[in-house]
């Protein structure tokens, strides 16, 4: 270390243990790290690596079962581990601020935003007149980039959007003007475009206040964008610690390298992400983009519309209508993967449910293999259901905790009356478990005995049990860690080639899309705004919204040219009840013209199979 400035935070040999019934769990194992004033340290790691526990230990906020068993946390020359609770309170908030992951639960729903902010002001500031306290709060809000701070000051948390709440959380954390800000996954619960805004805000605030930051994250892109130093944790230990530049150019530790390999990206298309001895070797398929457009489409969706009637606010007021899906059309050839991309609330999961006829569309048609699915009774649909199956996002709610794995997988076979008698079905369960890379002994066990990734495999096996042709994947990897996501993506690719499956892959993660999909449909407020071949669309987006999404996704490559701010989309998606007139995107669009607020644009052919609904499609090349 050639720096003469003493570090603001110096953690030496910190060990945190948890007392569990019957055992003692080592959560953090002798870690060392330092943060210089005004710099950002990114603490990278997968779930359970001990990164959040480290952050909580620094704040003295460990849950009752946890305790620091060894090590020092030296903050500005004083050892925080020796502080009493009362002494810690004087450090917390005023010298070290913290922002949590979940903005929805971190704010008190019965207190106004202003009250919660002014509560966090330093004591001497709080003693001032009511008016000046209010002014300070309003000023903080406006510094956070919250429009109309005077009005927002008196609002309650439920009146704010997720991004706004996170801004308020940051305002609270910064009210005491701390020298160190701990941000524990500050943007994980937010959409990509909102995430970009929050990260910009944090960067700007850090520069203004010369504040040090400990950024706990699992996202390599965020770390690359924000950090000066990177520390990688795994199972409570630090495996690598380096400057951001060195780390992102050449990670040293095999674990870091493995994580880098697991990052899906355009350049890795068609190659496995997770190199492992256990990976099932599959013959490299010829490029999947060879599917010729002459193929008869397997699924054709046209003019799909799903409306939700809201409960009316008053007796005589008209019921408001939410356009969850509005005029969505696409077709899908056998063996193809279509990715549906969009931010939360854009209606992508609703598309899946209405294709499956679990949600009856209000209009439009869904034709599967020349059979119209809409308007059929449940009884008529039953035999058709085996062809379309679904895999869900949340591996914890997608398996019934009271059923054994074998019963879970057999359920579909029994309902569809296939798979023969009991012993034949058991046989098939064994085969399926093997296909998805699980041990046969898993059969008799219950879901809680499995990890998230294993549960997702069980979910896939359950869907495959009825030999579907089309698999609808509803964010199948977004609840999983990076390395597990890589394994699941590899598995899905293998299964696609082994069984000739067709996928609809719903996601918000663009890196997964560019790695995995053949074609992409981008949705905004219930409509597809752009559709086209994955590579073309990701490299040359025609719709401004697609471009904004691509820019907002934190990319590792940006690390080199840091400092130059990228223009990010402002604001947040409007409510699908009160959609802007004309092109729904026009209020946020940088090139909006008067016509955009009048007419919804017709689809414009950019190239073969590439269409965009925009009056002024982009022609410039990004990437």
């Amino acid at each position, binding site marked *: 270390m050639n720096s003469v400035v003493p570090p603001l935070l110096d953690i030496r040999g910190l060990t945190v243990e948890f007392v*569990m*019934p*019957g*055992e003692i769990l080592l959560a953090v194992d002798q870690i060392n790290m330092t943060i210089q004033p005004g710099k950002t340290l990114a603490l990278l790691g997968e779930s359970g690596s001990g990164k959040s526990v480290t952050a909580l230990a620094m704040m003295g906020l460990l849950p009752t079962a946890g305790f620091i068993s060894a090590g020092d946390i030296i903050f500005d020359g004083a050892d925080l581990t020796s502080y009493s609770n009362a002494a810690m309170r004087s450090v917390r908030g005023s010298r070290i601020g913290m922002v949590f992951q979940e903005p929805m639960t971190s704010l008190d729903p019965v207190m106004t935003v202003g009250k919660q902010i002014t509560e966090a002001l330093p004591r001497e500031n709080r003693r001032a007149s009511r008016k000046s306290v209010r002014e300070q709060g309003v000023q903080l809000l406006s510094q956070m980039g919250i429009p109309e701070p005077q009005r927002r000051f008196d609002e309650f948390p439920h009146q704010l959007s997720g991004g706004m709440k996170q801004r308020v959380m940051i305002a609270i954390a910064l009210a005491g003007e701390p020298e160190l800000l701990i941000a524990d996954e500050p943007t994980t619960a937010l959409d990509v475009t909102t995430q970009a805004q929050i990260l910009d805000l944090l960067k700007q605030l850090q520069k203004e206040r010369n504040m040090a930051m400990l950024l706990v994250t699992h996202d390599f892109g965020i770390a690359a964008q924000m950090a000066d130093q990177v520390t990688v944790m795994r199972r409570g230990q630090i495996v690598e610690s380096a400057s951001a530049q060195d780390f992102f150019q050449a990670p040293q530790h095999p674990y870091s390298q493995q994580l880098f390999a697991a990052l899906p990206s355009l350049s890795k298309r068609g190659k496995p992400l997770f190199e492992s001895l256990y990976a099932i070797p599959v013959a490299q398929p010829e490029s999947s983009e060879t599917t010729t457009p002459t193929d008869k489409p397997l699924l054709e969706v046209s003019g799909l519309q799903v409306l939700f009637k809201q409960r009316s606010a008053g007796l005589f007021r008209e019921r408001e209508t939410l356009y969850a899906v509005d005029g969505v059309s696409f077709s899908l050839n056998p063996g193809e993967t279509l990715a549906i991309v969009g931010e939360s609330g854009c209606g992508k999961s609703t598309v899946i*449910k209405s294709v*499956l006829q*679990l949600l009856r569309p209000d209009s439009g048609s869904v034709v599967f293999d020349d059979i119209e699915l809409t308007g059929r009774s*449940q009884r008529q*649909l*039953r*035999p058709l*259901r*085996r062809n*379309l*199956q*679904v895999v*869900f*996002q*949340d591996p914890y*709610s*997608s*398996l*019934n*905790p*009271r*059923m054994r794995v074998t019963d*879970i997988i057999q*359920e*579909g076979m029994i*309902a*569809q009356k296939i798979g023969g008698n009991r012993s034949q079905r058991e046989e098939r369960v064994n085969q399926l478990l093997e296909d998805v890379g699980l041990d046969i002994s898993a059969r008799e066990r*219950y879901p*809680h*005995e499995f990890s998230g990734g294993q549960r997702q495999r069980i*979910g896939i096996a*359950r*869907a495959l049990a*009825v030999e579907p042709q089309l698999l609808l994947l509803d964010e199948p990897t977004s609840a999983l860690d990076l390395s597990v996501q890589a394994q699941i993506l590899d598995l899905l690719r293998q299964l696609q080639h082994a069984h000739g499956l067709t996928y609809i892959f719903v996601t918000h993660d663009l890196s997964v899309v560019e790695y995995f999909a053949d074609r992409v449909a981008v949705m905004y407020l219930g409509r597809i705004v752009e559709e086209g071949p994955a590579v073309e669309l990701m490299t040359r987006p025609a719709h401004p919204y697609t471009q904004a999404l691509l820019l907002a996704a934190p990319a590792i490559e940006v690390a080199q040219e840091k400092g130059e701010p990228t223009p990010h989309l402002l604001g947040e998606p409007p409510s699908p009840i009160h959609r802007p007139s004309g092109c729904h995107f026009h209020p946020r669009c940088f090139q909006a013209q008067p016509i955009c607020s009048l007419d919804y644009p017709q689809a414009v052919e950019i190239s073969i199979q590439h269409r965009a609904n925009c009056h002024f499609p982009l022609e410039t090349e990004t990437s």
Partner: protein
Amino acid sequence: MLGQPALLISDYLIWSICLIGGISLAIGLRNPLQRQRWRMILSTPSAMASAIILLTYLAIALLDSVHFRPLLPQDEATTNGSIEANSEQPNSTVTYAASEISLLDLLLSNIRKAEERSYSAPLAIYAFSKESLVTAAGTTRAYPRLLYGGADLENPALHRSDIVNRTLTGLGLSLILVIPIFLLFRRRSRRSPTLSAGNQTPAWRTAFMTIAGLLIIGSVATQLADHYHLLGTEKVGQDVLYLGLKSIRTGVLIGALTLLIMLPLALVLGTAAGYFGGWIDDAVQYLYTTLSSIPGVLLIAAAVLSVNLYLDQNLSEVTSLHQRADLRLLLLTGILGLTGWIGLCRLLRAESLKLRELDYVTAARAFGVVDARILIRHLLPNLGHIVLITIVIDFSGLVLAEAVLSYVGVGVDPSMISWGNMINSARLELAREPLVWWSLATAFIFMFTLVLCANLFADAVRDAFDPRLRGKQ
């Protein structure tokens, strides 16, 4: 052969509830997660102690639920009103008593038959009030000796030492049982490791202490009750301990049967409303909001009174006193059940609303699994914890409700022995001077123990099964 079996309807019901409960517990325990939860419950000392005491109560209630008509000795047969059983064999006439008694009655025949003339205090040898006694010296007003309480005690001066002696004998006898049990438990707790990961050991120490305590109390009580009225006698001279023990069946029966009636109602209506939604939901909600807006006690009182009138007019000749009381009890549980399902139904509806949106239910629908099967395979098992928690919490409430209703006079049949009736008669006893406190005290102690144990056990069950509380331990 003790006599002719004459099971009452409630006997059949209580035994079948136990059977159903046992079977569903056995099925539930096949799931390792469930097994772990039950182990967690039993590792809580208070829950272990409560479970053992509750099982004791249940055992007494079950013993009291095997009714039969006892065989009458030949000479008594002619004098008592009896039923001719085997009339086609006149030379070997077997006769049975007209009224049913239970196995418990048989076990307690000593204190059941020891009827005094009126009140006597606990462990007394003299009656509670003075009577005119004719002695050699003439008629005097004095406290007469009791007919049974301490009857074989020649010298009244030895009363106190006799009680001490018998207590010590009881303690000594109980040790004969307690010591082998102690050794058994010590081996048991040695064998199971004290700290193993995620595998809580049942609270064996508490279990031993509770069982030992129960044995000691039981043994001492047996010794004393054989010769005295341990808890005194009531107005017509019946032993209060006997009444207290007999009331257990009534309390347990009210709790269990009512649950049996409200469970299916709440389950069917609650899950249907939550899962199907739409007009079914509207109808069920309408039903329970209407029902819950009628004052509960009023509804129960009206129903009980009108049913009683009907019973009096139509069934008075056909049935025995016992059977009539039994019918009234069943009706009371029915009415309590019909008014009591609303709370559980609400909970189940809310939970079903949540469950039907879960992915595994969606997955089942995507397979084309029929609704009935989804309800049985996916919803019901995942509602189990709510049902279980509600059952154990409501049980104690129902035992208390019986007491309140009987006290008001709309509860069980006045001829039926129950804590409510005991408390009802205690109303007058407390107004006397000197006051008769033991009836009320007995009812209180028996009921308090049951309700306290049920509540403690309910707490442990809730801790183990409520997902919202998980992770807070």
